[in-house]
C-alpha cells in the first residue's frame, strides 16, 4: 500500500485535544440490561483513552448481530456492514489505508458461522487489524437460535430438544487459521480484557480476541463456570518469562503452535490469556513491498508516465 510518503494520510495532521472516554461515547447502547457486551464496550473506551490513538484514525467495523451494533455506540469513524463479511471489509480498509487503526467487533454467529471462511483467509493473509469476537454461544439478535459455539444439548428455538451438532472450538479454529495473535478473555474481567486489547493492538498483524460475553436474555449463566464469584474458575495462562528458572519450563511458550492447540483442548471452561503469537509479515507489508519494487523499476515516473508507456507498448 502506498508508502507513507505518497500516502493520502500525509495530508491531514490536525490539531488534536486529548482523547477521553467521554469523547468516545455515542448512542446509548440498545443492549439488554446486564448484557456482557457493555463491559467489552467499556474496556474499549478505556483502552483507546489510555493509548491515545489519534481519534480520527480509529475505525470501528462490524457485521450484523447484537454485538455487531458496537459501532453505533462508539464515536469513531465506523461502519455497520453486512452479516458475516466484516473481516474482508475491514481488511480492505486496513490494506487501503495503512495509516488507520482498524477494529472489528462481532458475534459467534457472525464470525464462526456465516463468516467462518473469511476469518480463516483473513488470518492466513495476516491483514493488519484487531478482531474482537463477543462469543455468547447463541444467536442474540435473532432471538435464541443455536450458534456454532452452542454446547451439545443447549435448547434453542432451532434445537427445541437440545443441540445435536458438535460445536466448533474457537481457539482451535483460530490456531489453525494462521492468525498471528490469538487471545481469550471474559467480559466479567475488565482488567484482563484491557490487557488483551493492549497486546492485540501492539501486535502487528491479524490479532483476534475471543471474549466470552454472556447473553442474559437467551443464555443466562452460560459462563458461570468461569466466573469466580459464581463459584467458577478463571484460570490464566502462565507465559514463559525466559528467566531460565525451573518453573519457567512448565510455562506456556506463545510461539508454540502445537502447545496452543493443546491448551485449546482443555476441558470447559478452559483457560484464558494469550494462546499464540507469531511475527510474520502482514499482508499490508507484503503488498507495500510489491509496490516498492514496482516503484523502483519505474522510479520517479508519474501515473501519467506509467499509463502512457503502457499505451505505447500497445502500438
Amino acid at each position, binding site marked *: *500500500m*502506498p*508508502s507513507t510518503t*505518497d500516502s*493520502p*494520510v500525509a*495530508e*491531514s495532521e*490536525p490539531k488534536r485535544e486529548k482523547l477521553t472516554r467521554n*469523547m468516545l461515547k455515542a*448512542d446509548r447502547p440498545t443492549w439488554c440490561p446486564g448484557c456482557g457486551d457493555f463491559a467489552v464496550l467499556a474496556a474499549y473506551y478505556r483502552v483507546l483513552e489510555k493509548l491515545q490513538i489519534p*481519534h*480520527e*484514525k*480509529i*475505525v470501528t467495523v462490524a457485521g450484523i448481530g447484537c454485538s455487531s451494533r458496537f*459501532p*453505533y455506540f462508539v*464515536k*469513531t*469513524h*465506523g*461502519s*455497520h*456492514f*453486512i452479516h458475516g*463479511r466484516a473481516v*474482508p*471489509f*475491514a*481488511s*480492505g*480498509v*486496513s*490494506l*487501503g*489505508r495503512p*495509516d*488507520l487503526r482498524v477494529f472489528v467487533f462481532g458475534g459467534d454467529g457472525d464470525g464462526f458461522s456465516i463468516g467462518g*471462511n*473469511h476469518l*480463516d*483467509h483473513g488470518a492466513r493473509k495476516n491483514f493488519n487489524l484487531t478482531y474482537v469476537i463477543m462469543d455468547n454461544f447463541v444467536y442474540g439478535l435473532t432471538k435464541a437460535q443455536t450458534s456454532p459455539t452452542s454446547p451439545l444439548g443447549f435448547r434453542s428455538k432451532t434445537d427445541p430438544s437440545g443441540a445435536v451438532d458438535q460445536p466448533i472450538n474457537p481457539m482451535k479454529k483460530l490456531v489453525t487459521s494462521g492468525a498471528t495473535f490469538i487471545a481469550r478473555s471474559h467480559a466479567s474481567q475488565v482488567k484482563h480484557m484491557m490487557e488483551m486489547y493492549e497486546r492485540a493492538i501492539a501486535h502487528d498483524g491479524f490479532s483476534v480476541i475471543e471474549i466470552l460475553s454472556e447473553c442474559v436474555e437467551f443464555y443466562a449463566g452460560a459462563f458461570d463456570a468461569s466466573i469466580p464469584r459464581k463459584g467458577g474458575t478463571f484460570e490464566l495462562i502462565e507465559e514463559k518469562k525466559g528467566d531460565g528458572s525451573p518453573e519457567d519450563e512448565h510455562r506456556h511458550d506463545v510461539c508454540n503452535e502445537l502447545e496452543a492447540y493443546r491448551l485449546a483442548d482443555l476441558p470447559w471452561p478452559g483457560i484464558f490469556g494469550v494462546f499464540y503469537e507469531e511475527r510474520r509479515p502482514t*499482508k499490508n507489508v507484503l*503488498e507495500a513491498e*510489491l*509496490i516498492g519494487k*514496482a*516503484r523502483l*523499476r*519505474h522510479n520517479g515516473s508519474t*501515473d*501519467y508516465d*506509467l*499509463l*502512457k508507456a*503502457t*499505451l505505447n507498448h*500497445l*502500438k
Partner: protein
Amino acid sequence: MISPSDLNTLNHNRAATGKVERIEDVVIRLAGNSQDGIQTVGSFLARLAGRSDQDVMTYMTIPSTIAGGPSIYQVRMGSGEVLSAGDEADFLIAFYQHSYEEHIIALREGGVLVYDTEYVQPNLDDRRFVYVGVPITGLTIEAMGGTAKDKGKNIFVLGLIARIFNLNVEKLHDLLRERLESKGEGVLRNAMVAFDTGFAFPVDNVIDRYYQFDPTTSDRDKSQVTMDGNLALTLGLIAGGVRCGAGYPITPWSPIMETLRKELPKYGGVFVQAEDELAAVSLALGFSYAGRLAVTGSAGPGISLKMEALGWAVMAEVPLIVVNVQRGGPSTGLPTNVEQSDLMQAIYGSHGDTPRIVLAPKDVEDCFFIAIEAARIARDYSIPVIILSDQALATRIEVFEEPNLKDLMLDPDPDLSDRPADYVPYPLERRTRHAPPGSFIEGGNYPVVTGLEHDEAGHPTANPKLHMQMTARRREKLKRLAEEIPLPEVTGSQHGDILFVGWGSTWGPLQEAVHRARSKGQEFGHLHLRYLHPLPEGLQTIFSRFRQIFVVEMNDEGLYGYGQLAGILRARTCNPAIRSITKTDGLTFKVREILEGANRLRGDAVSTFSAYPY
C-alpha cells in the same frame, strides 16, 4: 518438396500470375487447434493493422475442453471502419481435416481455401471455392531443420498472408523482433526463417492475383493502439483513478484482475485475490469506504454472489465499480460464449429498492472510456456502478486512436480534509460526500456508514417518514444523472420505418446492418444505449419518429416475447411498437441475422391494446 496431391491443386485453376487487386477489406479465418498458436498470427496481424492504416477486428473461439483443441481465430482487416468480425470469411486457412470440415461453411462462395496438404484433403469437386494447397507443416519443418518439429507453422502462415496481401514486411519483422527477442535468439531466428519461408511460397502459381488494400479512408494522423476489450477496460479503470480492487477468478473476467494485480503496484495500488466473490466485493467496499475507489468484478455466477453486498453499497452510499463480463447463462451455463442476459439482474438483482448505475461499452475503445465514466459517476454520486461487458468484447482485438491521457486521467486520492462540526453523511437536502476515516471532524461526531435505514447522521431508524425520504434520496440521485447524461443520437435515418435499439457489443453489427439496409434505400435508424440505468431522457420522442422499434439483444425473448432491454423500454414508454430481435446461441449477431429478424417482424401488425371504452 511438393506432394503429387498439391500438383493436382496447382494445376486445377492455374491462372495468369501477379495481377494485383485492390480490396477494401478482407476476412481471414484461421482454423486449427488452440495449441497451434493461431491466436499469435491473429494478434500480429491486428497489431500490424494498428501500425499501418488499416482498421481491424478479430474474433476467436475458446476450446471447451480443458485439454485445449479445435479453435478458430478470425481477423477482419480493412481500410474503412471495421464494425464486425464479418459474417463470412473470404479466406479460410485450415490446418487440419476437422478444421476444413467444420469451417468450410463459413467461407463465402468464391472464397479461397488455404490448407495444409499434410493433413487436409478437401473435396475439390465442390466448385464454389478456390483451393490453395500448401505443405504448411512440411515446409515449416524443412525450413527450421526439423528441430522445432512443427512449431512455427503459425509464423509460416503469417508470412504466407503477408505475401498474399502485400503487407508491410519491415513492420512485421519489427513486430516479430519486439515480441520474441525476450524469448531468446534461437526462437527469434526460427520465427524469422518460418516467416520468410511462408512469404517466399509461390502462391501466385495457384491464385491468379495478389491483393492490395485501398489507401485508408479514415484519417489516421493520430497514432493507434491495439488491444482487446478486457485490457481496454482495465487501462480505463487505471485512467479513472482506480487503484484498489479485489476479485476471484472466473472466465472471462480473470484477465482483468490478472492485469490489475500486475499493474496496480506501479501506481501504489493493490489488487487482492479473495477467497470468494463475497469476500471480494467486501474487500472492495472496504477500500472504497476508506476513500480509495475500488473495483470488483466477475461473470454471471460470481456477480450473483455479490448481490447482497451491492445492496449495502446502495444503502450506505459507498462508491464502487463492478465489472460483469457477461457469458452464456443461466448458472454455469456456457462459460466461453457470449450473451447479454444479465441486464435485469444488474438493475434489479438485489433485494429491496436498490437504485444503482448500469453502463455498457459498445466496442473495445468504449471499454476504455466507459471505465473512466464509471469512476467519475461512482465518485460524484457515491454509488455503485455496474459495467456490463461481454465475452466477445472482452476477447476480441481492435485498433483505436490512442486516447489523450492528459485530459482523461482522474485523481485517485481520497479527500481527507477536515470536516465541520455539522457534518452528516446522509443530508436530506444534499448529496452524500463521505468523510473517509482519517479525516478529522470538528467536535468528534464521527459517522457510522450503515446498511440499516438511517437518519441524516447515520443512526438507525424505522421512522416511517425518514424511510420514505431516504428512499427518495437514493432514487433522486439517479434522476439527476439522467438529466446530466447526453441524449443519445440516432445514426442512419432520423425517422421513418424501423429503428434498431441496441446496447453493448451489438453496436457494430447494428451499425453495419443499418448501412446495408440504407444502401438498399430503406429508412432504418440505429439508437445505441450506453446508459441503461438510469435511461437517458427523451426516448419517447425518438421512438415516436419511427413506425416500428426493434430492440436487438443477445438474450431470450422471455415469457412475453421481448428481451430484457425491450421490456424495460416498453415499461418506460408503453409504446407497443417496441418489439424484440433476440437470440441465445452463444455467438455474436451476424448482420444477416439482424436484417432477417427485421424482415420477419416488419410484416406483423403492431400489437396494441385499446384503452377504455371497450
